[in-house]
């Protein structure tokens, strides 16, 4: 597997966040679950490609933002997640 090499602390945090999202998605309804998974994985993949891995400030910012969004998603009253494209 390519992920064998020793992961740094920040990489572990990112993976833990991803795992957290997937686990939370499991608790929602099936089609919501698929939507959450697609949104989240798309975002993570985009950032993984575009963000320079040495840019710790930005990565930590994204982690904090992600954690907060995860906390909100964990709330049982929240049914799903949606994204909008904003044209700049």
């Amino acid at each position: 597997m390519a992920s064998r090499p020793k992961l740094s602390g920040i990489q572990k945090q990112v993976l833990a966040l991803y795992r957290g999202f997937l686990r939370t998605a499991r608790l929602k309804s099936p089609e919501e679950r698929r939507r959450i998974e697609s949104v989240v994985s798309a975002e993570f993949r985009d950032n993984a490609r575009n963000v320079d891995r040495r840019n710790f400030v930005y990565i930590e910012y994204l982690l904090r933002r992600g954690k907060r969004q995860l906390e909100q998603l964990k709330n049982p009253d929240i049914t799903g997640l949606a994204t909008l494209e904003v044209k700049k």
Partner: protein
Amino acid sequence: MAAAALLRRSPAARALLSPALSARLVASKPHSSAPAPPPPSSKPAAAANMKTFSIYRWDPDSPSTKPHLKDYQVDLSDCGPMVLDALLKIKNEQDPSLTFRRSCREGICGSCAMNIDGDNGLACLTKISGASSASTVSPLPHMFVIKDLVVDMTNFYSQYKSVEPWLKRKDPPSQEGKEILQSKADRAKLDGMYECILCACCSTSCPSYWWNPEEYLGPAALLHANRLPLWGTLIKPKPNMFMHLQARGYRGVADKRNLLDHKRRLLAEKYELRGKLYKAVCRDPDLPLDMREKFRYKLSKLPRNSSMTRLRNRCIFTGRSRAVYKKFRMSRIMFRTLANKGELTGVKKASWWIQDSRDQFTKERLDAINDEFKLYRCHTIKNCTHACPKGLNPAKQIDTIKKLQIDA
């Protein structure tokens, strides 16, 4: 309308006004029904009072840029007196992407808290210092920045929540469905704490909070912790002391002095009757002298420790011979200790200030923060008092809590 009002003044008052001024005023608007004359152009010819503001900028959407200070020039003669006015002016006229929190513009909401020229404060209450020097505006120190001057307050709010900032009672109010009453004096105790608007200026100015933001609660949360509780008991009652005492009766404490005193009491009891008898015989003037002599001899032969005068009411816990109160059988020190714990039924401190007399969960609240990190990270640095835009004194409240912790 103002001119019309002035006209109605007495001639003496009018005479006081400078002739030029009064002439101008008399000339304009004699009648309120007449159309208002155009306001006199008072602005002095563009004395452009420019001031430089260096504002911290960071945009998360362009991740490659590092946080930096950007300079903006503001004409102070065309701007309100407060820093918030300047920020809004910059946002409106120069750079719409400048992001900051604001709401009430009157210093009551606490949204616009930021660091201005090195001191934390509310932008809507901080006057712009003067055109001569440049001002630096940056977000609250040692807080994660979300964008420009907006910081992440989640940790701060969760600490406030952890203090459980609501009234808790064990028994319902004295009159069902009515408010819990409080005397004016009790309500006065809350002054200095209820005004807190949770702007976070104090907590973010505390170096101790910078180094331990997760564990140390910070002056704001502690101020609110102090606002609620406050009565007596701090440490959980140790069961040993009492059980020990109750199980063994008076001789509860294995204190040498108490044991000896106990021995004396036993002996006194044993020889009581005899002693009294002998003494009575000795003192009786009607009896023959030799008989009295004999009994006096017998009295002197009684063991020394059977004398009542040798008994001393000692403190049952510590064996202290002085300052022992008969009613409680303990010395003043133990009395105070146990009374503060609440272990003496019916004993309450007379003029004890209760922060909020309506809250009954003092002990639990104090226990909850009686922790090396939550409370004791405070080293009385006093930056919080200096920073508070409402003029409150969180350091004093923290001091109060610490004193209460000691008192038990």
